């Protein structure tokens, strides 16, 4: 089995990287979905689904994850102005794949001010809207371990992925006109390491491992939170997008929107589904029928030509004579 033993350990990201070599995964044979590709050969093997678990209740808002992300991906987000919040930069950008979003929320039951910090970024949906919307073959792929990745050399920069995404994640670079987002550190995962953000997190609010293990770990955390009075604590693994490979433990899982507009029930927007479904196939058929009809009529119907009679009648009219009856 080529599976990576480190994936079974929830603390893999915090542990040291493997010293022994093993076969790199996440190649062409691991693709389960490929954008704008009708016939994708079935994957040669099934990798164990992985997940990143972000425990919002353990996050201290230090932004080590952002720094690690910048360092690993070698991006250089612009230095911005302080706009009155700890959030920096002001939004996800083509250079900033993950962002701590801060919300000050007054709990109506306790009247306590709660500081809700959510690490925003790609959720790696099982049913990815970006991939569905993408018109460029192979610009967005999904591996059998669940990671959704942008293959920049195939990207055409149209921004359709932005319209397909229920979480408003992808950003188009105005420099190289490619779409960017969190890769779940697919390049690190492929060689047995956890994502850079998880590696850097000082409180292990971010952990990485198999999706099953992450769910189990989440359960323990939720039990703990409930025992501390957070009766609505729960796991955010939304079904509307088939579940996600980045999950949250929320202390108020009954209202995800309080965490800086985390969608309560995300799904691929119906308009995108209509566009990429019936419009695409029916539209192509309609245009095909119109073209085929024109060709067939052209081949089998007689052309509409000017007759000798038409010419005579025209001449008579010009000569000032009354043309002889209708042509």
């Amino acid at each position, binding site marked *: 089995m080529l599976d990576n033993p480190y994936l079974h350990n929830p603390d893999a990201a915090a542990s040291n990287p493997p010293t022994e070599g093993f076969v790199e995964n996440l190649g062409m044979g691991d693709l389960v979905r490929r954008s704008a590709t009708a016939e994708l050969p079935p994957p040669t093997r099934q990798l164990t689904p992985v997940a990143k678990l972000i425990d919002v209740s353990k996050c201290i808002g230090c932004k080590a994850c952002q720094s690690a992300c910048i360092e690993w991906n070698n991006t250089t987000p612009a230095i911005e102005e302080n706009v009155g919040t700890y959030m920096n930069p002001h939004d996800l950008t083509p250079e900033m794949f993950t962002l701590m979003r801060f919300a000050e929320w007054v709990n109506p039951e306790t009247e306590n001010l709660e500081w809700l910090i959510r690490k925003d970024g790609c959720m790696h949906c099982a049913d990815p809207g970006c991939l569905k919307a993408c018109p460029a073959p192979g610009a967005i792929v999904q591996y059998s371990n669940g990671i959704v990745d942008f293959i920049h050399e195939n990207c055409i920069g149209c921004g*359709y992925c932005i319209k397909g995404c229920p979480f408003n994640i992808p950003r188009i670079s105005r420099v190289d006109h490619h779409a960017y987002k969190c890769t779940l550190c697919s390049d690190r995962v492929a060689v047995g390491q956890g994502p850079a953000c998880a590696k850097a997190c000082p409180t292990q609010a971010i952990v990485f491992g198999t999706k099953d293990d992450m769910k189990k770990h989440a359960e323990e955390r939720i039990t703990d939170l409930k025992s501390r009075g957070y009766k609505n604590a729960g796991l955010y693994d939304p079904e509307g997008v088939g579940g996600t490979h980045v999950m949250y433990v929320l202390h108020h899982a009954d209202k995800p929107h309080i965490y800086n507009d985390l969608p309560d029930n995300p799904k691929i927007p119906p*308009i995108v589904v209509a566009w990429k479904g019936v419009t695409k196939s029916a*539209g192509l058929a309609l245009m095909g029928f119109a073209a085929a009809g024109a060709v067939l009529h052209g081949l089998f119907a007689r052309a509409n030509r000017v007759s000798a009679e038409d010419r005579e009648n*025209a001449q008579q009219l010009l000569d000032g004579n009354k043309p002889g009856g209708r042509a």
Partner: protein
Amino acid sequence: MSETILVETGDAIRPGNPPMVERYRLGARINHWTTAIAMVLLVLSGLAMFHPSLFFLSTIFGGGQNTRTLHPWIGIILSVSFLVLFIQFWRANLWNRADLSWVAHIGDLVGGHEEKVPEVAKYNAGQKFVFWAMALLILALLSSGIIIWDEYFSNLTTIEIQRIALLAHSILAILAICVLILHVYAGIWVRGSFDAMITGSVTAGWAWRHHRKWFRQLAAGTAGEERRSRES
């Protein structure tokens, strides 16, 4: 009402063998073909981004990135070019009651019995339909296209509006392509029409057969027209 607008500026009978009728001025023809080339390029680049099975069309433009960059600019060229075309042609394309009876005889026309179809002025109802359909579709395609022109206008609207615009742009484009197919086919099926848009003139026989009301008007006015052109 449009009985007074049977002919357009520049329309004239040129005696000879065979006698010819000037139908499209040079400016109008240049405009038409600019619009036509832009339209074909838009269809090819648009289809490449519409359906994966047609993505190979992007190679015509030098790859997907170029296709994505060029498509909206070609759209701007088309919009400007069509606007000029619209200003030149709209009066003669106003709808009137005679067009209804033409529509009622559409079966005779397609069936090869054009003699049963009522006499037509400069444009028949089918041509008028293509004109107005394209005018409306291009306006709507331009509006929705600007909304989804990510490079410059992505901050102008919300993503939800952009989603709607994307769906609308696709549907409108499909309709425009169907109208385009109708227009090109009619131009080929009615022999002599294509040449008219190249050379600007048609034979008197063609004018008699397809646009008799227009031809009669020109024939009746020829003497006066000639006098005016000599004086100027």
